[in-house]
């Protein structure tokens, strides 16, 4: 599988004390091509976030391997050793908790730029403003602290911070669940544009509408294992597993609406 950007095989991880182990992820395998978008759906506690953290290099699996361009990610002591680190970046669920409340949006992004590019402060500032502008954050808003920004704006600042590293994969863990519908649409448009420019995205969500819109392929996760996978169209139109069927039946109101009087 050399053409794959990332592949994971037989991932398992469990938590808890020795007496009471809970298997969060059990024997999970997936692949991701360059510029591809995949979705992972499942309910709370199904192991989605743990899987995301393994892929992003934040959680060492008990068993299994993750390969990035054929290189093992968890080879030695450190995950994503050296320059690999910047290749996979993560955006978290909570836009209210993932930014430093005492730093302006610009400072937060510039800090990440300087870390990854080791460029001068002025250059980092300029690059950050450009990045933020491409996400619809004006220079005026960029100089505000997180509490003065809306949830959607904060989430876009988090994405800008992740993109400073010029990653080839973005792992987004429930990026839209804490923000309003219109802000969701903005963020999804942004992700769409990034995929168009060759970024691969792993989108974790329990919102099937978001997955259907953005992901080309989808993995359905239930109690730590993948119960179904395939192209998003196939899985949505012809779900095979009972759990997938229940998920799809729970989407409220898929009836179309007239949008103009």
């Amino acid at each position, binding site marked *: 599988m050399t053409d794959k950007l990332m592949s994971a095989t037989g991932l398992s991880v469990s938590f808890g004390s020795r007496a009471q182990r809970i298997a969060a992820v059990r024997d999970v395998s997936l692949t991701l091509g360059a510029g591809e978008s995949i979705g992972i759906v499942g*309910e709370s506690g199904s192991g989605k976030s743990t899987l995301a953290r393994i892929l992003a290099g934040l959680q060492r699996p008990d068993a299994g391997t993750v390969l990035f361009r054929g290189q093992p990610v968890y080879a030695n002591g450190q995950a994503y050793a050296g320059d690999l680190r910047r290749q996979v970046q993560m955006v978290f669920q909570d836009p209210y908790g993932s930014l430093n409340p005492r730093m302006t949006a610009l400072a937060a992004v510039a800090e990440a730029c300087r870390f990854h590019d080791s460029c001068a402060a002025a250059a980092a500032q300029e690059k950050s403003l450009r990045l933020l502008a491409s996400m619809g954050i004006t220079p005026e808003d960029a100089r505000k602290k997180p509490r003065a920004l809306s949830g959607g704006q904060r989430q876009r600042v988090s994405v800008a911070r992740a993109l400073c590293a010029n990653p080839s994969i973005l792992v987004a863990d429930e990026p839209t669940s804490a923000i309003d519908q219109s802000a*969701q649409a903005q963020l*999804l448009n942004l992700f769409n544009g990034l995929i168009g420019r060759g970024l691969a995205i792993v989108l974790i969500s329990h*919102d*099937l509408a978001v997955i259907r819109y953005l992901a080309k392929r989808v993995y359905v996760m239930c109690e730590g294992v993948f119960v179904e996978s395939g192209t998003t169209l196939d899985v949505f139109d012809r779900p095979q597993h009972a759990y997938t069927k229940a998920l799809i039946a729970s989407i409220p*109101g898929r009836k179309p609406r007239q949008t103009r009087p």
Partner: protein
Amino acid sequence: MTAAPLVDIRDLKIGIERGRGEKLVVVDSASLRLRRGEMLGLIGESGSGKTMLCRSLIGTLRRRGAVILSGSILFGDLDLAQADERIWRDVRGRRVGYVPQSALAGPNPVMTIGAQLGEAIRRNASGDSSAVASRARELLDIVRIRRPDVVLKQYPNQLSGGMRQRVMIACAIAQSPELLVADEPTTGLDVTVQAEIMKLLRDIRTDMGMSIILVSHDLALVDAVCDQIVVMHAGACVESGAVDQVAAPLHPYTAALNRSRIELAIPGSELVTIKGQSPAVGSWQPGCRFAERCGIVQADCRVGGHPPLVGPASGHRTSCLHPELMAAMP
């Protein structure tokens, strides 16, 4: 012909006290009617005043330092906008039940489910303990919790999020109120659990004849389960009507919300977004508060107070001054 509504909120204005008599207006021009036995969906972005409006219906504004500045809340024979704490003690819980937003933080963590239900049941009536216990079991049965005798002895941390929300609903309906206010009851819960909770609310409405106000920012959800919709934007009610009526919106904000719905979009197509952000409390401009974001704004939209809802009293109403221009919306 139409019977008097159960709830009739007229031109409500709510402010938060900022000291030295200064008040920050957070809800202005809110109007809403709910008939008996109906389920009404109240939708709007975060900060649009949905929760403040709910709090005005259960008399807990003061606890958040907020007060009603003008307008009325007719509820049966009462005007709740004028109610004092003595009246609220008869209304809260007894005639209006409330399901709070956060199911996970809702129940008291150091009380068993049985103790919390008992408190909700006993709040006003004096009941002997065996009657309270049998009522508690009955309530758990209504919210479809199996093995009630086990659950009554458990603590909230032993229950899943969906179960906890069912317990909160059981507490809210303990005294068979006429109105149930549910403030984003399924936020943070899984879609399958959300579908079950919605079915439960609909059944409570049908079986017990309760009227329900469901607060949500999910238009698809409200569309699927409610009879009536009220849309809020920046502290004002901008459109209201039956679900089918509002499906053909008469306000550009509702139209934009409709078109930014992700579940109806073609995968990968450019999604419609609403320009700018909802104006923050304290920085409202004169006239319609959607004007800055509106594609069909006219000169007269920017003068005076926020336009009120107009249209047939129990039909499709809009606050937009120029709904006739909506066909030309960009």
